């Protein structure tokens, strides 16, 4: 069942006098007990989308739904939303007030929501986050903890509100390599023990491979490909996903995309990836007869369904041919 959902969400900002379409039409759903990875480069709008799902950003159009109900932006509705959907930020050092003890940091949520039994909530959240025995950590200050422990405190702070969904923005990007796996394993364990869903925002495809059920690849404000991790990360259909996978250190033949980084104030017409697309540049798109479409044909916004889907003229043309002549393709 779908728990948290973005329906045709658009978020626009004014940026140096121009309109920046940070999120430009996105459907994305996180099911119950599901871990979804939202992958993309910096500036693609993935963090803005995550903030919108948390209710920290208001969509210019479209809506955020929780449990099928559209999110209202009254302070009362937002408070209720916060108990269900919680945030874990990238930098655990900055996410904790240096003046607060671990206890105060974890108790902040329960105090804001005036939950009864604050002490028990804090203790159980800390031990769920792997800080055991919790009492030993109560009076510590963030600077006395290691990076991994700090991130566990941040996660415990979110857990203290007993949410159903965690939105984690690059949860391990600023952690040491050896600690990374432990924090990711914690997210998996929380899912197993509490049925906690998660939306993990990251630029790291290895992370998606490690823990996510589904992956959505975002480019310049749109999701360009989404589907089950095994499918998307082993046989990607979108040239952008292919390029992202090809530059991983282990890969044999990297496709390094050139060109300027994408700019949300100047979104190209047609397929927004076409100026940097290696398939278009290689002439493969022209061969399939879609090069004109790539440059001018607007692509539909992908639905939020669970199966694999891709927003690419070339991939569509190929799969159409696939269906027309299945025998030859299979060879």
């Amino acid at each position: 069942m779908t728990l948290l959902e973005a329906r045709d969400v658009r978020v626009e900002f004014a940026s140096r006098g121009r309109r920046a379409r940070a999120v430009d039409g996105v459907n994305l759903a996180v099911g119950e007990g599901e871990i979804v990875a939202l992958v993309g480069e910096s500036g693609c709008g993935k963090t803005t989308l995550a903030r919108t799902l948390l209710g920290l950003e208001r969509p210019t159009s479209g809506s955020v739904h929780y449990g099928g109900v559209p999110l209202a932006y009254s302070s009362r509705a937002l408070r209720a939303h916060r108990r269900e959907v919680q945030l874990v930020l990238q930098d655990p050092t900055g996410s904790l007030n240096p003046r607060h003890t671990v206890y105060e940091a974890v108790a902040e949520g329960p105090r804001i929501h005036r939950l009864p039994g604050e002490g028990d909530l804090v203790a159980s959240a800390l031990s769920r986050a792997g800080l055991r025995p919790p009492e030993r950590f109560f009076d510590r200050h963030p600077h006395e903890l290691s990076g991994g422990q700090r991130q566990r405190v941040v996660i415990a702070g979110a857990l203290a509100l007993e949410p159903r969904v965690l939105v984690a923005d690059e949860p391990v990007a600023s952690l040491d390599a050896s600690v990374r796996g432990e924090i990711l394993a914690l997210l998996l364990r929380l899912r197993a023990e509490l049925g906690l869903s998660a939306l993990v925002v990251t630029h790291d495809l290895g992370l998606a491979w490690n823990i996510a059920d589904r992956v959505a690849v975002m480019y310049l404000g749109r999701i360009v490909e989404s589907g089950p991790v095994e499918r998307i990360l082993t046989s990607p259909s979108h040239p952008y996903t292919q390029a992202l996978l090809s530059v991983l250190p282990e890969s044999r033949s990297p496709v390094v995309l050139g060109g300027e980084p994408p700019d949300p104030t100047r979104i190209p017409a047609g397929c927004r990836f076409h100026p940097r697309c290696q398939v278009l540049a290689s002439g493969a798109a022209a061969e399939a007869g879609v090069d004109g479409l790539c440059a001018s044909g607007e692509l539909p916004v992908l639905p939020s369904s669970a199966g694999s889907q891709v927003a690419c003229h070339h991939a569509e043309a190929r799969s159409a041919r696939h269906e027309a002549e299945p025998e030859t393709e299979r060879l």
Partner: protein
Amino acid sequence: MTLLELRDLAVTYRGETGDVPAVRGVSLGLEAGEALGVAGESGSGKSTLAMSLLRLLPRNASVSGEILLDGEDVLTMSWGRLRAVRWASASLVFQGAQHALNPVRRIGDQIAEPLRVHGMATGAEARRRVTELLEQVGLPAWRARGYPHELSGGQRQRVMIAMALACSPRLIVADEPTTALDVMIQAQVLSLIRSLIAEHGIGLIMISHDLSVLASTCDRLAVMYAGRVVESGPSREVFTGGRHPYSRALAEAFPTVGDPASRMAPKGLGGDPPDPAHLPTGCSFHPRCPVSLVSCASEPVELRVAGDGTGAPHTAACVHVSEESR
């Protein structure tokens, strides 16, 4: 001749609360045209090691051992000689490219600065060299007139590399050159670094916590833990067949996409990176080691020959190494 050789390098920070050993006896060698990756996480001493190579450590650091650059000891060099060596024979690329550039000076002037300081070029000649350098790192020449804020993170890192190349150094030390960058830009910068080493025969020391990045860029790897090298050898061997449990853990931390073994199974090490001020006794890694023996807690382990002896030297500091290979 070996371009750079470290002999038993040790760095200790003297603090109010006592001495903190950051690097504890590291010996490494690097040939011209070779790339050496130094892997490790916070507290491993890898950044201290990088800074010590050009004597850029803070005053409270005491250094012992030898750092031979072209056979000359950097540690005993006069100040005048050291100034000539910095930039001209060896230069550094830092990780925070956005903070290492002066926001109010033109990019061209900043690249030309080391040339002017070392009296290697002036005026039109310096401008020509700047254009050449920008082209080498894949930036258009007109960028020289721009300011850092007009560039993206990857472009700034390219400018940093152009600055490092300005005086045609023989050694480049790159400390986490791609950490803050996106995968695509990281790939661009890495391929740039690789091609520059190949073309100019520059020696490279690259420092990172990401073993997979190092393995794809460097010929050899040295894995550091708690101020020591715990394993060193050819990149492929260390990355895919690490003999030290810590090397294996680092290699597994960044999974290979498509590898069924790592699907839904993130791997990490329990415990925390070592605190240099309170190092465990014996093998410093033993509290986090999945295969530690009782003796590991008391007896330190030196580097041992870990390869099959036929290929390039491969050493690892683990008790299990001798048992298996003999």
